Every structure is written in C-alpha cells, then in structure tokens.
C-alpha cells in the first residue's frame, strides 16, 4: 500500500520535498545512526471517549487505517527521519515539527516529504498549525521522541476535548477559544481506566530501574501531573530549559510544550499518577474517568 502511494504521488508530480538540517555543529553522530522512515496519513474520523461518545476527530496515522491516537515516532540522537505525510482529508492541511521545521502546506489528497536530523534528545511535537489552534485542537498533533539512552521508556501525549466544540468546528462553525471548557482528558487519546491498558503509557518496571517518561501536551489546558510514591527528575523541558535537574513530584506541562522525566523507583508498589487539577481527573463530569493512571513497580 505504501509503495502504491509513493508511485502515485511521484507520477502525479505532486510530491513536495523538504530537507531540514539541524545544528550539525553540535551533532555527535553515533556509528549506529540510522534512517527512520515514517509515513503519516491525515485521516478524519472520530474519537471514542471513555463514556462511548463519538466525537469528530482528526489524527495522523502510521497506516491508511484510522487510529484515534497519533503515532509516537522514536529516534536516537543523530538518526535521520524521513517523513512522508499524506493528506487523505478533503481539506488542505499543514505540517510542522514545532521548533524544528517550517510549516509545509499539503493540499487535499496530496503529500509532502520531509527529512530531519535531531541534535538534541527530548520530545517534540509535530502538528498541523493551519488555522491554529483549530486543526491541532481537532487532533492533528503527535510526538517525536529523540533518545540518547536505551532505558525503558513510556510516552504520554496528553490532551483535553470538548465534544460540542469538535462538532462545531467540523461543521464549519467557530468557537470562542477564550471560553475553552474541556470535558474529556486523555493520555494517548484514552482516559482512565483505559490508560493502564496502553503499554506505551502505563509505566512498569522494577526497583532500581531507570525509567523515562516522555510527555507532550498537545491540548490547550495547562496540566499538572502528580506522582504518588516517587519523585522524578526533569531531563528536558521545552518551556523551561533551566528546570533541568529539578527533582519533583508534580510537573506542570503547558500547552504545546514537552517534558522528559527520569524515574528510578526505590520501592515496589502500584501508585497513581494523575493531573492534580482534579477537574481533569473527571470525564464528562464523572470521577475518576479522566487523566489518571498508575505506575507499577515490582521487586
């Protein structure tokens, strides 16, 4: 299927090509640096919420089959990322890696090719910045992870949703962003109790392990994630570089910002991690159907 798409796009002369070179002077290339090929398909469908409400939604997908969670793209520092972004929607979209690339327009049923090399480990947001914040809010925002280690890692793309607003925006109406009042709060597009069923999100490990948690906030609310049981160390913060090294139990994550945490559990147990804006622990006003998961540490 992928090859078919490439052939079609090449033949129709619709392929835009962009190379993104980044800070080569600071790159320390690993001899194992590789090229990661990642297709992304923009598909309009719906988000199934914790109370089974179907909300109009848009995501990037790693295949032509729709998934309500945007793919997490994993790289090592120095790797080359080759991205083909296919717009299967009937509307034009843009593509941007925040802080890395410039926005590329993708007409309906067209595609764009981007190549990027990341010099700094961390977590980055790719999204559709067109008509901002509309398309990003509607779901077109995912995570690129750039690692400088091989420890066990977990990934949270956190976001919130107002189902009425999604319907309004999909039908061409406008909303007043100054009165944003979300009702659903998700990690990788699902809420409690379904977050623990996602092996990318649910943190597991053993006492003494070094664990990493990569978080992007692709929503428009500030979230304040609180760890029970353990303090974690900030290894990267897109908003506050000076916060590197802080050891905390509660971590604010601002809209369209990212953070990387390192956790070294000193005891076994199952402990909650949740937004301490306790409104965000609810889903459509039902407690505790929101941004709530647990970390599970075995001896």
């Amino acid at each position: 299927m992928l090859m078919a798409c490439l052939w079609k796009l090449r033949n129709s002369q619709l392929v835009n090509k962009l190379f993104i070179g980044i800070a080569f002077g600071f790159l320390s290339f690993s001899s194992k640096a590789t090229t990661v090929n990642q297709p992304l398909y923009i598909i309009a469908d719906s988000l199934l919420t914790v109370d089974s409400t179907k909300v109009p939604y848009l995501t990037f997908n790693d295949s032509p089959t729709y998934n309500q969670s945007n793919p997490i793209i994993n790289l090592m520092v120095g790797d080359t990322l080759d991205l083909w972004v296919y717009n299967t929607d009937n509307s034009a979209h843009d593509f941007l890696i925040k802080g890395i690339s410039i926005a590329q327009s993708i007409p309906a049923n067209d595609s764009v090719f981007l190549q990027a090399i990341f010099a700094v480990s961390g977590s980055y947001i790719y999204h559709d910045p067109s008509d901002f914040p509309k398309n990003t809010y509607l779901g077109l925002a995912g995570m690129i992870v750039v690692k400088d280690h091989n420890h066990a890692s977990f990934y949270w793309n956190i976001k919130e949703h107002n189902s009425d607003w999604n319907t309004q925006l999909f039908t061409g109406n406008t909303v007043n962003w100054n009165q944003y009042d979300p009702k659903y709060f998700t990690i990788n597009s699902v809420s409690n109790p379904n977050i623990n069923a996602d092996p990318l999100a649910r943190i597991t490990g053993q006492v003494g392990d070094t664990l990493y948690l990569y978080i992007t906030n692709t929503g428009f609310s500030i979230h304040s994630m609180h760890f029970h049981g353990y303090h974690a160390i900030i290894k990267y913060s897109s908003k506050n570089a000076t916060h590197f090294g802080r050891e905390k139990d509660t971590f604010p994550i601002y809209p369209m910002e990212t953070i990387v945490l390192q956790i070294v559990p000193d005891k076994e147990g199952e402990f909650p991690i949740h937004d301490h804006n306790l409104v965000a622990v609810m889903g459509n006003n039902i407690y505790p159907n929101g941004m709530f998961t647990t970390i599970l540490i075995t001896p």
Partner: protein
Amino acid sequence: MRKLLFIFSFFGMAISSFAQQITTTNIFSKMDMGPQHILWDGTNTMLMGFTSLMMTPIDIPGPTLVYTEGDSVELKLRNMSQSASHSIHLHGLDVDQWNDGVPHLSWEVGHNATESYYFKAPHPGTYLYHCHVTSSLHVQAGMYGLLIVKPQNANETWDGGFTFDKEYAWMTSEIDTVWHTDSIINYPHDTTTTLRELPDYNPQYFFVNGRSEHQLLDTNVAAITAKANETVLLRLANIGYFGNRIIFPNQLNAKIISSDGRPLPNIEVSDTLEILPGERYQVLLQSSIEFSDSISVDYFNLNTQNIANTQKVPVSVSGFVSSVNDIKKEVLFYPNPVSNALYFTKNTTFASVFDVNGKIILSANNNINAIDVSMLSNGIYFIDIDGVKTKFVKQ
C-alpha cells in the same frame, strides 16, 4: 570493669531499638451539618475537613502537621463525617503503597472507624495532606492541609541549607459554592461504586490560608512582617484547581530555593512564581529597606489562562535587625571599597548584589569565589552572601 561497661552498653542499645520513639498525631475527618463556614462576604458554606480535636469546627486549610526530619510518625485518623469514607494521602512524602491513602490501592476509613498511617519524614520541606476518596470532590470540600518537615536545626531550610529568621506558610485554594451543598457533599457512600458525577467547576472564592479580601488584612492569616535585613522563609502550596501566579513587590528580593521537598539545583531569583495544583515551593524573602506593600496572588484558569481573581497579602518591612555592619563580623569578602571584583573568603553557594532601593542588580550561584562589580556605578551597594547581608562601596 570493661566487660560490665560493654554489657550495659549493649543493653542500652537494645532498649533504645525496641523503644524507638513514634510521634503520634490524632486527626479527625468531619462534615458540617449545614452551611456554617463564613466566607469573606458573609456567605455561609458547608465543608468537609480535618480537625485536630473532635469538637473543633472545620476550617480550611486543616491543621498544619509539623514533623522533624527522621521522625517516625503515626497519623491516626478518626472518621466522624457521618457519611463518606475518607483517607489521608501524604502528598509528596513518597510513602509506601499501603500508607499512601488511595482507597482502591490500599484502604479507606469508614464512618466512626479509626485507622493509622505510618511513615517516616524523610526530606525537610513543604508537603500536603488530603483525602483521596473521590478526591475531586473531597479536596474541593475542604479536606486538605499542610505538612511541614523541618531539619534538626529548625532555622535552616535543610541540613547545610539556608538559614532564616522567621517563616510563613501559605496554602492557596478556591471554592465553588455549588459543590458545597448538602446534595453534593452529603452523599450516601457506597464503597463498591467509585464513579461519581460532579458539577462543572466555576469557583467564586479564592483563598490564601482559607481567607480572602479584607480577611487577609488580619495579621494572623498570612500577612508578612519583618525587619530590614531579616530573612523570611515563605512556604507556598497550591491545593486548588486553578494556577497561581505569585508576584512579589520590587523591594522584596525573592530567591526560589526548593520545590516539592527538594532543593533546586539552580536557585532562581524572580519577582514572579507560578505554582500549579499540587506543587509546593519555598522562597527566601529579604529586603534591605523599609516598605509596606502587598504580594499579589493571581488565580488563573488552567484552560483559558485568564486570571479569574487576584488576592493581595500585606507585607511590611519595618525597622532594622541591626546595623548591617554588625550582622556578621566575619570577613566575607575583599576588598572594600572595590573597583573591579569582590573576592569571597570561602567558596559561596549564592551571592546577590542590591542597590540602595533593594533592587537586585547582580547575582551568581554554584560554588563561586568572586563576583565582578566593575560595571557598577560608584556608590553604596548591599551584598547577600549565602544569606548573610552586608554592604560595600564601589569606587
């Protein structure tokens, strides 16, 4: 004789190990039988909360629990709330799962029952405790308080940390009175059902230590009074569902030194500090001049980032702790007067230079042994070296 001493010594160790001292704190969880907590505008509202005595009325925040680093603590909760079960989550203390206070991962305390949480106070700092049963509701209802762990030397921030002359603690929160009605708070509790529908959250009242507006003029609530050159430790904790932005007046030099019970790797000097729900910060405040003003606390909506309310807490610096030259006789730096650089007599963690208006104009930290003042205009300046203040002349 030597043998006898050995036996006594061993016997003594055994006793001390068997009789390891446990600090026991009693706390009660209760619910108002109707609206009886008076807010700043005279409105009565209904609370659930913690008290230290059975007959004490509920107030927000609950009693502040203070321990010393290394204490072994038994926190004994008696639930007198008539309806819901309750628990105590020791927020930030990283206790074991059994004592973490999360009902479905450990246990909860039913009405008229008494249970104990056991923990060791590990790191000096500022923490919270709150109920974790239906936490969105029970925290909003008032079931929270501060927990402070002090080092052995109570006038230090932590062992080998900063010294201070006096301390204050502020806990910020909000109330939406729609949540504080009998139909919401006084619900029949079913331990087999964890789901609970709650109203939208639109708070009308915004608090520092449970008080607002004119109530904050009461010097016993949160107002800060100090003398010039005194060092004040301000403990800050946000248990609300809005963000807080603390804005310090220009005359007050604020050093942000720790958060969530851990020293910051790099101390920050700032006149603004944002504290999100569940976070705690410790800030050192100093002024070299006398003044009266207020510290602003903005409460901003986490979805829109719009400021919903601002509370102002008075701060007054009056009188001097002593002549600045008498604070410390030890020679801390040389030369004085200085033209280019001040050299410290020992490696220094933190140094700040202030002008005569108390405004910070230079700062450095992390194992420094000098600070370049060559760019300063000639005149008198003040310098704070690891919490010790004195003045110098630039020429």
